């Protein structure tokens, strides 16, 4: 039965102020039940305050074959990392 159901990607905001983060995926026949399945699968232990579900088919993904040209040029450019600043202790989630 689940083979007939589309796949949905699940994003959960774990608390106010944080971004939604990818948690996993669920099968469901439609958006409304996808939300409920996401709730029952991923937020049973108080992990969330908000859920998004997105049809997996709507995700546009980069091609792993292009990983070299997409990502490797960033590897040796240390000056792009803001690692030369002191971050105050009270700044979190940066």
């Amino acid at each position, binding site marked *: *039965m689940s083979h007939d159901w589309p796949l949905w990607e699940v994003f959960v905001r774990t608390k106010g102020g944080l971004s939604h983060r990818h948690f996993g995926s669920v*099968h469901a026949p439609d958006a409304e*039940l996808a939300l*409920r*399945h996401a709730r*029952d*699968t991923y937020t049973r232990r108080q992990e969330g305050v908000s859920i998004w579900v997105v049809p997996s088919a709507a995700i546009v993904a980069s091609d792993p074959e292009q990983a070299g040209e997409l990502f490797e040029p960033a590897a040796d450019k240390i000056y792009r990392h803001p690692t030369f600043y002191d971050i105050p202790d009270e700044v979190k989630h940066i």
Partner: protein
Amino acid sequence: MATASPVDAPPVDARHDYLLRLGDDSLILGQRLGEWCGHAPVLEVDLSLANLSLDLIGQATHLLEEAGAGDGDKLAFHRDVLDFRNCLLVEQPNGDFARTMARHLLFSTWQHMLFQRLARSSDRFLVEFASKAVKEVAYHRELSSEWVIRLGDGTEESAQRMTEGLDWNWRFVPELFEVDETLQALIDRRIAPDPREFEDEYRSAIAAVLAEAKLEGPADQRPILGGRRGHHSEHLGHVLAVMQFLPRTYPDATW
């Protein structure tokens, strides 16, 4: 009676019996839904049903511990079938997924309406209990409505199965609105809500879901009553045999 008790004195036996009724409803339905664990049509539904089950078992724990002065396990695992006070609806076999969802819609819609009112009881424990549990039950009601609508307004086979599921469970609905002497004593003291006050609202709510599901409501059948007095169907004994086997066979087992 020579000394009539004042109307606001708490009727201890009636309150105890009411806690058992509410607690046993949740316990037995929780156990029934637990039977789906590992057997549901798909993994996501397996988790949904286990979630509903755990909510219900949590409710049963609170209610039976209150009834048993802190020892809920004794009431859950060491009572025999005639001492259970749950309604007949919750002990009905799961059948297929459609029948389970039909049962859950019929029960959780009633339980939701009851708990909304129980949250305004004159009994402090019941107010605290119902204020928390009403949110769980609201979700149960929504989820089972969604499934009844999808199966009713689905394929020819799913509609047929949902129709049969509703037909099976329908005769156990009138018991939910029955008021006996015990319940009346608690209604008089504003401890328990009077279910007859929300029977019309219940019937319209179910009719609205069935209309959206494009299903005919089942024809009224001869009501079957008796669960609140311990007159159960043959099914409850089997539920208890599975549920109580371990603690009765190994009374000192811990885990």
